[in-house]
């Protein structure tokens, strides 16, 4: 039995120990469920994640969804740990294979000596060239038997959850209450069947075939229960806390779950969300809300953002505040709609026509989806401009546990500013901040403002004066620059000087940290720097770069024609530093920690 960390991991402290009762104590466990998308494996993965959040454990999940309309292979991976969990795990310790194709596709993801529990009703051929421990369980027939009647095999997921609960000595009552919360709303029969399947799985005599039991250690710090949720939900709640009451969008994966939630949530707050006829209408309606004096949002994924771009240029020109979300997926075009990629960075910064500066932010993990949404609302109001949030497919769907944000200090209560404007009112003063007078405002001078996409003077009146266009272009640029000047240098994780600095943005935050941990444990002087503010970025990053022998930017996009990823290109163009190298990938999958380590090392060696 070698469930210990594999040889490429120096973290010997995470080696499991066997206690006096023969129970293997684990610091962390990576469990992969492989089945089809309709088997409900996301549901049980979600239960396990939530249970971890209730037991002072860390958790991160990873899922793949087929882009087909119904069905198709799907996995859900849960990384549970009593220490810090930064990635969804490179390899799994446990694999639950529902079908032959699940087995064939995922047996390779097991660590050497890992355990594969497979449905012996479905999986017929087992590989003999692996040292995995194979455990056959007739999941399908046992589920049908437990529920009885015409239930067929629905409920296999809960049967498996029952087995997991027994195998890992999880708190059965807590799981039962989660099942009740999930299914109790539907009807009694559904809940009864779910509990029957769960109990049957829990009682299944797994000990007859697997003489091992596991106990996942509890975290050291026992505090309040953590919030366990996915990035799109955290982002939705951040928008609500930040003061968004109006929005409009068009459905597209993986953005849709944000608009679905806003549609349901906003009426509770007295607002509303409109499903528009297309992306252009969506951004235009959102700008209508913004013009009317509200903090508004629109969002989409890459293809939808392309369609919104003309109106977003207008928002820069007219200086209207708007929060714009891009849940990135694999592109170009329809690309890989359910895979992860960070290839819309340049689009966010430069995707519109004309000189069109705007703010671009990127959250680093699920909790940060909440905080960055709050910040985006504040920035949109303060700088009266579009503020992009670049999240991605991985963050959208993965589940993490985090402490509940301090709502009392973060919540913004929106108020319509309709105070009478005096005769001196200028929406676009050359020497001051942009302040609109929303419709409904009485204008004391009797002169009412028209907001326009034409170049205009300080009063908003159209003007084609060459001098004015230069001044106003500079004004729109300088306010973004001024925001950049307020940004502190990012914190450095690991060694704050030395051999290698790994730079990242977005959802790679956790895996990059874990990679830096491993590099340092192997004797490297390495640090990690993560950019949440990408446009503008903080000033004087060069003072950080100067402290390292090499700087390697890790991104999930293509190296492009000149050999550098999108953030790497920006950093090189700003700092003219040939030391900045680039590590890119375009397979639509999250980075494995060991891949970051090996590729960063290779890039640093080249430098």
């Amino acid at each position: 039995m070698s469930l210990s960390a594999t040889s490429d991991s120096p973290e010997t402290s995470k080696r499991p120990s066997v206690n006096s009762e023969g129970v293997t104590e684990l610091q962390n466990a990576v469990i992969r469920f492989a089945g089809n998308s309709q088997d409900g494996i996301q549901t049980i993965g979600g239960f396990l994640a939530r249970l971890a959040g209730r037991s002072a454990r860390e958790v991160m999940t990873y899922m793949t969804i087929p882009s087909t309309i119904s069905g198709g292979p799907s996995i859900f991976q849960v990384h549970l740990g009593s220490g810090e969990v930064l990635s969804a795990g490179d390899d799994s310790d446990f694999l639950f294979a529902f079908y032959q194709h699940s087995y064939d596709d995922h047996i390779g993801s097991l660590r050497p000596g890992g355990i594969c529990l497979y449905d012996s009703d479905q999986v017929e051929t087992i590989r003999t060239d692996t040292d995995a421990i194979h455990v056959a369980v007739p999941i399908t027939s046992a589920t049908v038997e437990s529920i009885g009647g015409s239930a067929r095999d629905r409920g296999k997921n809960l049967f498996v959850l029952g087995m997991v609960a027994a195998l890992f000595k999880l708190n059965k009552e807590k799981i039962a209450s989660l099942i009740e919360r999930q299914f109790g709303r539907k009807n009694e029969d559904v809940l009864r069947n779910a509990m029957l399947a769960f109990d049957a799985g829990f009682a299944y005599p797994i000990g007859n075939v697997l003489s091992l039991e596991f106990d996942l250690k509890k975290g050291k710090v026992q505090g309040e229960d953590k919030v366990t949720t996915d990035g799109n939900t955290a982002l939705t709640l951040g928008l609500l806390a930040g003061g968004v009451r109006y929005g409009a969008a068009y459905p597209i994966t993986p953005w849709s779950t944000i608009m679905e939630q806003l549609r349901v949530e906003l009426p509770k707050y007295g607002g509303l969300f409109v499903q528009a006829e297309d992306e252009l209408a969506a951004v235009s309606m959102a700008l209508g809300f913004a013009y009317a004096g509200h903090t508004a949002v629109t969002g989409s994924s890459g293809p939808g953002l392309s369609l919104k771009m003309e109106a977003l240029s207008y928002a820069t020109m007219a200086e209207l505040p708007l929060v714009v979300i891009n849940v990135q997926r694999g592109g170009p075009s329809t690309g890989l709609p359910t895979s992860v990629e960070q290839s819309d960075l340049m689009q966010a910064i430069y995707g519109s026509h004309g000189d069109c500066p705007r703010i671009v932010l990127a959250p680093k993990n699920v909790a940060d989806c909440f905080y960055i949404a709050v910040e985006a609302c504040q920035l949109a109001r303060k700088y009266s401009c579009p503020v992009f949030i670049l999240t991605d497919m991985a963050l959208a769907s993965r589940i993490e546990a985090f402490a509940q944000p301090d709502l009392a200090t973060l919540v913004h209560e929106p108020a319509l500013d309709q105070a009478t404007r005096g005769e001196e009112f200028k929406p676009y003063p050359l020497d001051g901040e942009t302040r609109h007078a929303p419709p409904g405002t009485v204008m004391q001078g009797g002169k009412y403002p028209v907001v326009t996409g034409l170049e205009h003077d300080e009063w908003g009146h159209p003007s084609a004066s060459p001098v004015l266009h230069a001044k106003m272009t500079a004004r729109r640029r300088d306010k973004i620059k001024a925001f950049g000047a307020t940004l502190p240098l990012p914190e450095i994780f690991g060694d704050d000087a030395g051999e290698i600095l790994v730079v990242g943005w977005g959802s790679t935050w956790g895996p990059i940290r874990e990679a830096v941990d491993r590099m340092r444990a192997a004797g490297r002087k390495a640090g990690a720097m993560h950019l949440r503010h990408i446009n503008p970025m903080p000033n004087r990053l060069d003072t950080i770069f100067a402290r390292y022998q090499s700087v390697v930017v890790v991104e999930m996009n293509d190296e492009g024609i000149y050999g550098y990823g999108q953030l790497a290109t920006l950093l090189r163009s700003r700092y003219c530093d040939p030391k900045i190298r680039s590590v890119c990938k375009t397979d639509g999958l999250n980075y494995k920690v060991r891949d970051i380590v090996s590729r960063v090392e290779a890039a640093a060696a080249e430098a």
Partner: protein
Amino acid sequence: MSATAETPKPLTKKDLTADHPTWCPGCGDFAVLASFFKVLEKLQIPHEKICTIAGIGCSSRFPYFVNGHGVHFIHGRALPLATGVSLSRPDLHVFAFGGDGDGYSIGGNHLDHAARKNVNLTYIVMDNFVYGLTKKQTSPTSPKGFKSKTDPTGAIDQPINPMKKLVYGGASFVARTHAVQVKHMMEVFERAILHPGFSVVEVLSECVVFYPGIFDDGNPRKGGQFDVIEEKKWDNSPEDADRHDVSDENAAYRLASLQYPGKFGVFYETDRPTKNQLEQNMIDATREKQGAVSTVDLLSSRFASMK
């Protein structure tokens, strides 16, 4: 609404006049603007509550010529922006303006959806059958054979029928008028503004530079005929049987199918709940169910459900 206890100063055409229009001398749009001013004067809408919104085109310059809150937006998207303003600000009177290119071509789909949703606003289309701002290209309403810079040998595509499009789309008030018939235009504008829901007025407004004379057939002073729709009076008289029932969608289609220059007046009018009201009902029902809860408490309970 005045901040003082005094009766507010009545709204006059002078208060509403802004920049002198940049339209060419003789443009039909001047009369549309003048009629709009007169109707606002008559209805005495509070000055600060007037909001005019337009996209791109000659007629879309409208907001600059009205002294009121306004937006000059991008090509074809005036209606979605106006939808956002209308839905979130029930206190305002929202007006959208535009031409045939902005409304029926690049913005054609938005028109269908604003109509379907019955958004509470008034949309005035100044249709001149030609692209004027870009100097004479074919428009979606240009008749077959019209010689433009993009169709030097004459337009070959069938033009759209705006009245059919509007009735089909679901607009709850659909009317047609002619820019030289100021009295008729004012009557129709007033009814459109007072109509709760999505009201549209199609105005034949001549471009004297790029398509002169095109609307003479509807102008008695140029030898044409301005044939006004007679609406039912519901007086049980024998004549009434032949009059137009504005609530009859099929009758509206029949009017829309008449040979050019056709008839003028209200084609269709129906009382249908607005999106504004339906959304507000949903907000009210939700809030009544949850009771008076602060934002922090609402969010806190949502977070608690995820623990």
